[in-house]
């Protein structure tokens, strides 16, 4: 809860900075603020005071706090990655406040316990992102990304709302726990299930699962690289926290309505994302497809409906994925300074800068799910949850597509370690980025060696 306030307060502060002219100081202030939020977040941990606030509009229980922690941590790393993005004189404060508002929305999504807060959270998260995606105003591709995101996001929101309305119609409440209680006690009219399915569709859109994923590659590609990193980490984590709360807690008991549909979505996502990613030439676009495939993996955790363990599995997965993703975007950011975002940009990186290549290597291995990186345990937990469910067959698809996944991640590794580059000069990079990559690499390995740290959080 405090984290939420601190972050939204920081957003407002950023706006004031424009007026009171302390834009230069903003960057450190924000970093410190996020750390403060992170600390505040953890002080609330295992602290019952934080439960049930504002008439149960929002509920920062341990699950929510854990996911908030992931978001805040990722945000911290993201700000380090994005330091150059905040050099733009014109919109410096705007950028800060937009990102911070988006994070506020993300934090809400981890903790909502009412349809209102869910909806508002999604919008608070999305609207700044529409803007950020289109923030390179003179670049048509950026415009297009923002525009596509906006249209499709609003369209999906309409479905979400229609679903909420139908559920409200059947239960007479927006409170998730009450809805859950109503579902468990009585028979529900058919249209409520339609509402659940519509919400499923909308949430699947937010996490970019096929066939609602089409926006993701285009938007990821068109947006500035750092914004893409933001979207594929924080936004994804938040969306998953929301998805999980809604479907594991809210609609867990009627999973036979949406289970099969979700399984189909997962299967389709796995196949389409991995297969399409294999044919990409742009790394950024590949990472977009890869994020779809990871989303499908996380959805498997939800599908397994093994409430306690699913949540841990998803928490771990989001963390591992966010870390790996930020790291790979950092690598991409470093090598693509000259604008080349294809695999060729990575050619011969090991000769030009072995440490960055090593960091990239570990993050790629993590994304591909090779032990003993965090990504491996993430996949492992998902497998463990799913294997006890009736949807075992998904594992077969998961395995097959993971192999395809290895193909495109290893394309980068092969490019870095094997391909010859025509450039020989060392890569230019900022110290902070190298440091970031190093820290993320270490975290990836530590998470891989000691997954208990995260699992025992709640």
């Amino acid at each position, binding site marked *: 809860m405090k984290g939420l306030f601190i972050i939204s307060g920081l957003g407002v502060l950023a706006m004031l900075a424009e007026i009171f002219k302390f834009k230069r100081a903003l960057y450190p202030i924000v970093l410190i603020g996020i750390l403060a939020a992170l600390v505040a977040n953890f002080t609330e941990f295992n602290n019952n005071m934080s439960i049930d606030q504002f008439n149960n509009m929002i509920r920062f229980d341990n699950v929510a706090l854990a996911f908030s922690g992931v978001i805040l941590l990722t945000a911290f790393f993201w700000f380090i990655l994005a330091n150059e993005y905040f050099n733009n004189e014109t919109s410096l404060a705007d950028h800060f406040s937009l990102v911070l508002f988006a994070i506020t929305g993300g934090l809400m999504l981890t903790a909502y316990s009412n349809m209102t807060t869910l909806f508002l959270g999604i919008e608070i998260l999305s609207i700044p992102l529409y803007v950020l995606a289109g923030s390179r105003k003179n670049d048509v591709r950026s415009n297009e990304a923002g525009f596509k995101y906006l249209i499709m996001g609003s369209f999906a929101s309409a479905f979400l709302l229609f679903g909420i309305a139908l559920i409200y119609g059947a239960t007479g409440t927006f409170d998730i726990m009450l809805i859950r209680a109503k579902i468990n006690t009585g028979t529900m009219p058919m249209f409520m299930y339609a509402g659940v399915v519509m919400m499923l569709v909308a949430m699947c859109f937010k996490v970019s699962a096929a066939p609602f994923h089409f926006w993701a590659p285009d938007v990821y590609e068109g947006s500035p690289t750092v914004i893409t990193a933001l979207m594929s980490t924080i936004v994804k984590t938040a969306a998953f926290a929301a998805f999980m709360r809604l479907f594991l807690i809210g609609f867990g008991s009627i999973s036979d309505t949406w289970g099969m549909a979700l399984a189909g979505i997962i299967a389709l996502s796995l196949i389409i994302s991995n297969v399409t990613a294999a044919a990409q030439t742009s790394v950024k676009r590949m990472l977009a497809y890869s994020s779809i495939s990871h989303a499908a993996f996380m959805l498997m955790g939800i599908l397994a409906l093994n409430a306690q363990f699913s949540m841990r599995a998803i928490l771990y997965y989001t963390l591992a994925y966010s870390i790996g993703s930020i790291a790979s975007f950092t690598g991409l950011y470093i090598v693509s300074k000259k604008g080349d975002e294809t695999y060729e940009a990575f050619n011969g990186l090991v000769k030009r800068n072995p440490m960055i290549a090593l960091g990239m290597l570990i993050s790629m291995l993590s994304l591909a799910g090779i032990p003993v990186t965090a990504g491996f345990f993430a996949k492992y937990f998902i497998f*463990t949850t799913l294997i006890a469910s009736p949807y075992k067959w998904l594992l077969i698809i998961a395995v097959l597509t993971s*192999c395809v996944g290895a*193909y495109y991640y290893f394309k980068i590794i092969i490019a870095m370690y094997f391909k010859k580059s025509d450039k020989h000069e060392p890569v230019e990079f900022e110290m902070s980025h190298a440091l970031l990559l190093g820290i993320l690499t270490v975290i990836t390995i530590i998470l891989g060696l000691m997954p208990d740290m995260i699992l025992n959080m709640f």
Partner: protein
Amino acid sequence: MLTGFLIILPLIAALLLFFIKGEGAKKVALIFALAECGISLLAYVWYRSNPNMEALSLNCNWVESLGIKFAVGLDGISLLMVLLTTFLVPLIILSSFKTTYDKPNAFYGLILLMQSALVGVFVANDGFLFYVFWELALIPIYFICLLWGGENRARITFKFFVYTLFGSLFMLIGLIFLYNHTGLDTGIKSWAINDLYAAGRSLTEAQQTFVFWTILIAFAIKMPIFPLHTWQPDTYVTAPTPGTMLLAGIMLKMGTFGLIKWLLPMTPLALEKWGGVAMGFAVVGIIYASCIAIVQKDYKRLIAYSSIAHVGLIAAGILSANQQGVQGAVIQMMSHGINVVGLFLIADILMRHTGTRDITKLGGIRSMNGQFGVLFLIIMLGAVALPLTNGFVGEFLLINGVFKFNAWMGAFAALTIILSAVYMLRSYQAIMLGEKKLNEVVFGSLADSDKAVLIIICIAVIAIGVYPKPLNDLAEPAVKALLMNLK
């Protein structure tokens, strides 16, 4: 403790090596590999004095909430595999002394890293740990092949990688399935090998069948068993020789070892029902690969196919699930590891001295270097399983085991003794005998390092063949204990 140290030492050495620049890395790596070998011998001595010695095992928590432990220990079979690994790695390092590799520190570091993972695979007593080491072993070898390999390596090594990964993921599913069935009465899930055994045996036949095939596919790819073998010849040919040696000499044994320790005792019902089918593939593979080996021109490729044939027999023996079959498999794993390293070294020596491995272009080398001819001959005889060489003991037990399982399978599997003679003798004749064909090449005396390795291998070939008792004494009770689980 000691076992844990066996895993850690090469790891530390590998990390250390990354800081040593230049050719000195070779020697450092060799020293560490020898130290490792010494420690494994110490483990052997301790084990013989008391197999249940606490100092040999290590059991500490890793991921407590999931019942994952860092549990390592030795039984007869794993001790043999560890000895094989620690015996071969110094030889492999020594055999590469005459070749200059770009960035030697990384090269040898990766070899030691690989050794660490391999030892881990063999000593793991925890299903999860086993899987982790299993996958970890893949990374260094992938890089060894990718960075120092031959023509077209990116594609070939990647195929190898994905193929293996594909299998491993299936194995992971199978293992998780087993894990989920542990502790049904206590409620505490565990990855401990004995719990997995118990879980496996408590399953119905259909469930066991699922586990059997998912896990088998990983092992079958790693070994490889026909028809999942096509990654192997290309990879063996493309990899740098030390990589090929690691792959064929040790890594291949991961599959057979896994089959013995991680599959046989888990699924007795499925084994009864499907063991024959799986064995059918293995046996077909023996004949198939042998036939292909007959017409290979590239000597390295020929050995690669012969390796498929040999390992097919090993797999068939294991699947027969009787004492002779499994014990034979263990012995043959040792022998094959030693022989194949020798053969690949020979291929490498040929390449270095003559610039080609094409057996149709070679010839008459024996008249130029008789010593090489004799060493080659002895190793080749080990490969064709002549009695009193190491190949025979294992092969006899294996055929015995398979024959016991099914006489026709046994008879077909035994065709290997004819076919292996055909391709081995033919290739030996083509390379070594007759008149010399490459006139410009003078095949001088061998380098000291090569000679040392070949001689050590030859001694091992004969010593194991004449007096396999030390191996048998380790393998026999271990296999017996393992097979008790099937009843």
